[in-house]
């Protein structure tokens, strides 16, 4: 291990040497001397390399809390930059015996960077006792504020989550959403009940933060509360977050089946008006029980109910309703309804993880193509086909490159499919010809560039959306 250190340490020191720091470290270390005193002397050196040796010992050596206390005692006397490096080393050491000294530094230092380092160290070394002081720092400016948030996210202690949840309920109004975010970062599932009550708080920012948090921390016990919150939402954004949280709990929580059952029970017990409000969520959750409800509404002679039923089924999360949608397209006489239903088919047919295999997906695409009434619908479908990453999907879409109306979406699909090297290499000749055709056809310079790159066996990095 020393050799490992020697190598890493050597690279650590190399910069100093190259920078011309050639002063000899000739340090008379006496192996028989008190190691703590030796390290303290090293830490006081003006030679950064010798201080690095001392800091390494603080991190990895010097047995016991007494050594920690002795080292921590010199923090207050050091220059600010050295205070920062020493506090970081004490934090990495992980001994809570340094907490009083770090706390004293936080309260006494006039330097924001030093206080931020102390705050971060408290996050590593502290316990529930430090929540109050960190909460206070959260109200400061950066870098203290950012450090306090990070510290509260990582602070250990059984009661820390409880205290943060309490701050989210009754703390400084401007900071309450931040406390909720901290609960999410801490994965405080035990705070989910508090979050449910915060989802109907008087402060919209708190409500939104709570709903976002419940999507990650909520479970079966919170479905009822989330439904209540959804029914009380006052804005489209809030409604979307509530819906997202319910869908997340009903599809991704530890017991999604039970969560969905609870949602369905709540739905059945709801008033007619509430049901209308819950229908879009029902559609996004999907499943046989939800489909039975939706089918009943679609079959209802009441036009409004049918409209809600259709809205729900067109938001279905997978292709299990594909046949039902195809039947409904055949039955409807209303062009708007037809467009809505075909739009749903265009969305779900090639959807990854839509419960169909690739062959079935392509069959559904072909079936949907036959149902499309407008070129706009056909173009949308052609562009979506690239989600099916098979050579058959490629062969389906390729002829549309020659059709002036669909050339651009077809070119895009061909290029997207060519992006997948395994698929491209397995059918190299076909893809090269197709990419040549794309280059000659498309007016989109990005597609031309990508096609050229794929032909040369190169990859292409998708620009990240801001």
């Amino acid at each position, binding site marked *: *291990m*020393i*050799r490992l*250190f*020697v190598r890493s*340490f*050597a690279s650590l*020191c*190399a910069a100093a*040497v190259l920078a011309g720091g*050639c002063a*000899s*470290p*000739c*340090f008379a*270390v*006496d*192996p*028989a*001397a*008190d*190691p703590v005193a*030796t*390290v303290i002397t*090293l830490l006081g050196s003006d030679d950064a*390399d*010798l201080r690095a*040796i*001392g800091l*390494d*010992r603080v991190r*990895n*050596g*010097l*047995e*016991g809390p007494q050594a920690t206390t002795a080292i921590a005692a010199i923090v207050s006397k050091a220059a600010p930059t050295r205070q920062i490096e020493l506090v970081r080393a004490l934090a990495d050491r992980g001994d809570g015996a340094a907490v009083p000294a770090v706390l004293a530094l936080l309260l006494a230092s006039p330097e924001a960077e030093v206080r931020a380092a102390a705050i971060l160290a408290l996050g590593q070394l502290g316990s529930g006792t430090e929540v109050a002081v960190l909460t206070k720092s959260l109200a400061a400016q950066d870098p203290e504020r950012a450090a306090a948030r990070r510290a509260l996210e990582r602070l250990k202690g059984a009661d820390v989550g409880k205290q943060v949840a309490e701050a989210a309920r009754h703390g400084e109004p401007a900071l309450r959403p931040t406390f909720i975010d901290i609960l999410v970062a801490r994965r405080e599932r035990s705070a989910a009940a508090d979050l449910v009550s915060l989802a109907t708080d008087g402060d919209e920012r708190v409500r939104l933060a709570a709903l976002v948090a419940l999507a990650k921390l909520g479970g079966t016990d919170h479905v009822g509360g989330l439904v209540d919150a959804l029914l009380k939402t006052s804005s489209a954004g809030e409604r979307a977050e509530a819906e997202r949280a319910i869908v997340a709990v009903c599809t991704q929580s530890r017991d999604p089946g039970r969560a969905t059952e609870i949602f369905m029970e709540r739905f059945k017990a709801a008033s007619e008006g509430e049901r209308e409000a819950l229908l879009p969520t029902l559609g996004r959750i999907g499943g046989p029980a939800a489909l039975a409800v939706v089918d009943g509404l679609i079959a209802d002679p009441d036009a409004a109910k049918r409209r809600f039923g259709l809205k729900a089924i067109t938001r279905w999360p997978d292709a299990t309703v594909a046949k039902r949608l195809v039947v409904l397209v055949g039955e409807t006489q209303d062009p708007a309804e037809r467009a809505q239903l075909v739009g749903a088919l265009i969305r779900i047919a090639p959807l990854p993880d839509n419960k169909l295999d690739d062959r079935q997906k392509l069959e559904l695409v072909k079936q949907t193509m036959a149902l499309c009434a407008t070129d706009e619908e056909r173009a949308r479908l052609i562009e979506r086909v690239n989600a099916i990453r098979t050579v058959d999907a490629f062969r389906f879409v390729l002829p549309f490159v020659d059709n002036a109306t669909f050339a651009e979406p077809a070119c895009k699909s061909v290029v997207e499919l060519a992006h997948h090297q395994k698929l491209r290499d397995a059918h190299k000749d076909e893809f090269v010809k197709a990419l040549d055709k794309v280059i000659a056809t498309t007016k989109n310079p990005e597609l031309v560039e990508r096609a050229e790159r794929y032909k040369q066996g190169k990859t292409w990095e998708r620009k990240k959306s801001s």
Partner: protein
Amino acid sequence: MAYDPASLDAPFKALAAFDWGHDAAPLAAIDAAVIAAHGDAAARDDVEKRLAAILAPGPTRAAKEYACRKLSMIGTAACVPAVAGLLGDADNSHMARFALERIADPEAVAALRAALGAVSGPLKIGVMSSLASRRDAASVPAIAALLKADQATAVAAAKALGAIQSPEAAEALAGAAGAAGGPLAAAIADARFECAEALLRQNRRAEAAAIYKAVATAAAGKPESRLIELSATRGLVACADTLAAF
């Protein structure tokens, strides 16, 4: 599966002519026999003899490599002469070492020791590396003598002594340190740190500190040796620390 010697005649015939890229399926029976020989002394002897025979002139290089790999698992003193016979062969020396490094019997390391004086160039460096991997203290005098050889051999000797880590190895390194320069000086310093680290692991702090102190003193004041001096200083501090957290 019971061991069946007669069933191995054809696979060993196939092995003798085997080459890389050929179908390896016929060798599966030998793989199975090596496994079946576990705990069956007679079977082990038979398979070992057959594998050792592959190392004689005639069979392909690929066959010899295969045989060495298998002998590294089941080989004993009995196969050592056949394996050691390849140590001077540039094509097969590395595979012979692969087997001899792993055969537990002392004859294997003795064969490596004997070969050290008989081979030259890269093969000598390879044999030193194998003796180092066996941490063979008995080979220290021979390896120490090579600290005065050409640079590549001398650097390899320093590394080998650093791996052996015996007091004699540490002494030999200390003796060569003063006259060495360039890459050899760095290799010797690194090897001495290896020895000191081993002592520290055994809680022989005073002995470890003596090595660190000597290295630090020798490097003191030389800008080109600053990293060595710093590393030695760090080692000295570690010797003073009762918590061996490295």
